[in-house]
């Protein structure tokens, strides 16, 4: 499935960002536009999203992580993500504080589940689900 880069207003012209709409748990009315971040080892989401959808982070293991110049507390849990029509159970680090506008899709919770082809020259990315993702999605 192909997704066009998001065009953002910038000080010196338009900025293009590779993003994917992600349904978090059952939040169908508000897919989160997430930034594909090949440098991130894990999915990093704002903790507000867990709170807004009732994902229980009590007792979740915590670590301090540095992202984009900010030290934040990441609580590690699992949640259902639906991307390109496939719903799967993903590991996610819920971070607080999270001063960013986008959640990040990284290796463990995203790139292991999808093959990604990026074309910055034309401003799009293609996702192809791994066979294991398709198999596990069928049962959900």
């Amino acid at each position: 499935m192909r997704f066009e880069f998001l065009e953002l207003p910038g000080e010196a012209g338009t900025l293009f960002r590779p993003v994917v709409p992600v349904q978090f748990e059952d939040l169908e009315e508000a897919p989160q536009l997430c930034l594909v971040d090949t440098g991130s080892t894990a999915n990093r989401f704002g903790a507000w999203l867990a709170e807004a959808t009732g994902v229980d982070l009590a007792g979740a293991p915590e670590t301090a992580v540095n992202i984009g110049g900010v030290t934040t507390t990441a609580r590690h849990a699992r949640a259902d993500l639906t991307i390109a029509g496939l719903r799967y159970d993903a590991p996610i680090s819920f971070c607080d504080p999270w001063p960013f506008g986008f959640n990040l899709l990284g290796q463990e919770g995203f790139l292991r589940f999808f093959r990604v082809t990026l074309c910055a020259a034309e401003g799009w990315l293609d996702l192809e689900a791994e066979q294991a993702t398709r198999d596990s999605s069928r049962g959900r």
Partner: protein
Amino acid sequence: MPSFTISGHRFELDQSGVERCLQDRLPDPVHEHYVVVRGRRFPPKQVIACATGLDRADFTTHQARRILKRLGFVAARAARERQASEAETGDGSRSGRQAAALRPYIGKWVALAGPTEVLVAAETPQEVLGWLAQHERRAAYGMFRVPASLAEAEGAAPA
């Protein structure tokens, strides 16, 4: 201050008073007509209902538009605008239109029904979720915060 008779009641309204009463309100969904108040698009009936305390059933969209135009607000039709922008880019390329559509919302959380169709903009993601639930709308394109700077767009945190 200009005065108007609406539904048998007399009101004195001015632009700054209308702007003040809407400053903490999020715009309801715009179906066709809207007026621009401090850079945000509101349905005309929402604006007049807020400014006068009248029920929206007490007056028409046409009346509301006429009053707001007299007060100096820009009024337009959303459907007409969409058709024009679609005609502009028949090749499917957004070619800067999305960035232009998002520019008024820099620093805000937005929910988009389509690449250039902003349903709601607010200070927090919780407000956006609340608005979508209240109005039973779906942000089919997604929600996010429009970065306020190049650094934010590139992944650095706001200072």
